[in-house]
């Protein structure tokens, strides 16, 4: 073998070159053009919502400002664990499946992806079980994995369930890659994990948090973000086989992360992002089904460098769940706007709030508050102590603690209810179910308490 241009080797090289370019060119020509967003129809869903009986359950309560009612219960059930980043999907029989990560602390090697299923009639969450652990991923991916996090579960256009999660082999979260798996039996069993290759630099620093969107050709648009050296938001297009076919960067999104996409039409969508510099909720739009995005701009809502979630209901209303306070995660609220309207001047639906969101809570008060709610929702003395210890470990200093209601995820079920899951003091995952069509009281009434049956 010699690379001098002469003889039989030369002719063979020429043939190889022509063949390679011909095959690669053919593959490029086979590439399907980008398709419009798949949009759910509105009228049928409004009907469905009206048909469902509105059952008042013991867990129903008033919001902290007394303006609306919702049901709330805890999802996770492992005392003493650090839990975070829940997401939610509706199963074919109407039950909900939640996934989140849980371990001794965020980023620890014992972190696993946990799951639990909720019965829609009793609103009771079943016992949690482990969906993926580090060892499973290592064996499936044939590579060393140090830690995992941020699971996002969703239904693919072909009807199967997909889960995407972040995992790291080296360094911190900025060294993350995305792994995915598929289930064809509503999450009872899962395929071997696969890696999404989204970056040329050791395939690091692509993370996922937001819910995916669907395209009419069966592809999935997964909102992701990059954290290494600089931050920015992107949308990865994934084909039916789970492979990446394109990736579109959101212009001007440097310092923004965790995009959340709200599809408003077959060609139109808004994206909202967490501000990495804790300035404001960042926003961008597309009018060509995500082929291009407008330059990122700051909205009027502050963002304390915290994750958000969003959903467009079957009736076309847009909802966001976020922390609306500028400096901490002590208030969790929902924002609602009609089709085509802005979120800028809407009144927030406060789901959970610290009594003193501007000031930290003393350790004693913090322990008392948490213990009170945990016990009211059925935790034993020992369980409450373990939950509180986990929260203290993560959110308290020597003297005081910051309350945290963060990392929301929104979903509308087929019966029309809106479901919100979020991290409650980093020690439990909480689920809130509310009727999005209920009247929103103009003036505050009473403070939040778990309703007596």
């Amino acid at each position: 073998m010699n690379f001098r241009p002469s003889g039989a080797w030369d002719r063979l090289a020429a043939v190889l070159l022509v063949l390679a370019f011909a095959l690669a060119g053919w593959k490029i020509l086979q590439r399907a053009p980008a398709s419009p967003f798949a949009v759910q129809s509105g009228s049928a869903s409004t009907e469905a919502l009206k048909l469902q009986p509105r059952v008042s359950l013991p867990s129903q309560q008033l919001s902290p400002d007394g303006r609306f009612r919702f049901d709330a219960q805890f999802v996770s059930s492992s005392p003493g664990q650090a839990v975070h980043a829940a997401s939610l999907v509706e199963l074919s029989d109407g039950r909900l499946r939640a996934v989140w990560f849980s371990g001794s602390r965020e980023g620890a090697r014992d972190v696993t992806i946990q799951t639990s299923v909720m019965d829609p009639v009793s609103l009771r969450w079943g016992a949690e079980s482990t969906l993926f652990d580090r060892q499973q991923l290592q064996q499936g991916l044939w590579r060393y994995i140090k830690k995992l996090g941020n699971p996002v579960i969703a239904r693919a256009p072909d009807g199967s369930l997909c889960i995407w999660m972040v995992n790291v082999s080296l360094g911190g979260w900025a060294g993350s890659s995305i792994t995915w798996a598929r289930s064809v039996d509503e999450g009872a069993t899962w395929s071997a994990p696969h890696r999404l290759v989204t970056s040329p630099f050791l395939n690091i620093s692509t993370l996922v948090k937001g819910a995916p969107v669907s395209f009419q050709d069966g592809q999935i648009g997964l909102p992701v973000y990059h954290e290494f050296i600089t931050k920015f938001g992107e949308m990865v297009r994934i084909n039916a086989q789970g492979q990446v076919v394109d990736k579109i960067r959101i212009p001007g999104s440097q310092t923004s992360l965790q995009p959340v996409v709200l599809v408003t039409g077959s060609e139109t969508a808004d994206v909202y992002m967490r501000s990495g510099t804790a300035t404001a909720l960042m926003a961008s739009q597309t009018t060509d089904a995500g082929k291009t995005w407008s330059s990122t701009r700051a909205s009027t809502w502050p963002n304390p460098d915290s994750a958000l979630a969003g959903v467009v209901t079957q009736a076309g209303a847009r909802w966001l769940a976020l922390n609306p306070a500028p400096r901490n995660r002590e208030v969790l609220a929902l924002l609602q706007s009609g089709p085509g309207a802005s979120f800028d001047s809407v009144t927030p639906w406060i789901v959970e709030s610290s009594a003193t969101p501007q000031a930290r809570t003393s350790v004693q008060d913090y322990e008392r508050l948490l213990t009170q709610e945990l016990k009211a929702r059925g935790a034993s003395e020992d369980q409450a102590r373990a939950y509180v210890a986990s929260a203290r470990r993560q959110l308290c200093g020597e003297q005081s603690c910051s309350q945290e209601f963060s990392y929301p995820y929104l979903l509308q079920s087929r019966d029309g209810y809106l479901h919100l899951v979020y991290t409650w003091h980093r020690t439990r995952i909480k689920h809130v179910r509310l009727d999005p069509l209920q009247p929103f009281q103009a003036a505050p009434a009473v403070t939040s308490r778990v309703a007596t049956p």
Partner: protein
Amino acid sequence: MALLCIDLVLCAGLLRVLSWRHGVTPWAKWATAIFFVLMWCPVGTAHLPLVAYVRGISSDLSISLAIIACMGMLQRLSGVRLVSDRERNSMNLAFTAGALLLYPFALGWGNWDSYRLGWGSDGMWGALFMLSLVCWGRGLRLLPMLIAIGLLAWAAGILESTNLWDYLIDPWLAGGAIFQCFKMAGKQLLARFTVARSGAVRSLP
């Protein structure tokens, strides 16, 4: 396939280190062969082969790097020089240019993402075609062959990635090419300096 590529590149590196001073001794050959096999031994609670732990850090390597590593090993084992300095220098220049085009933009410098071209763009296909033609016309064969094999591997989808860039270049190859370019430039500067200095000495009265 990805694990095999990593193992081959590691073996090529080991053989290079072992033959640094005394050439390729039988001991160096055996040590490399044993190392190749050892990398497949399962270790740890996950019973992963050693090479899978390396993969966690190195990520998948490009087809180009695997071929260059194999050629390097073959060259050492056979003692036959396979690649001329001209071929090697042009290859290093091309990979350096590719790295400068790819990594800064892909890692967030500005709003344009060069990595996106790798998911099947006419522009990238055309640029590679032109580069191959120019190299071929200048009598260079190594770079067009690396591009051809990279394209074939991409068309067949033999790696985890669906992006053509990942078949052609990786950060380890890019780092090596940039280092070789600096070394080449340093040598040329030193040669010029030496010539200029000797000329100045001769012209002294």
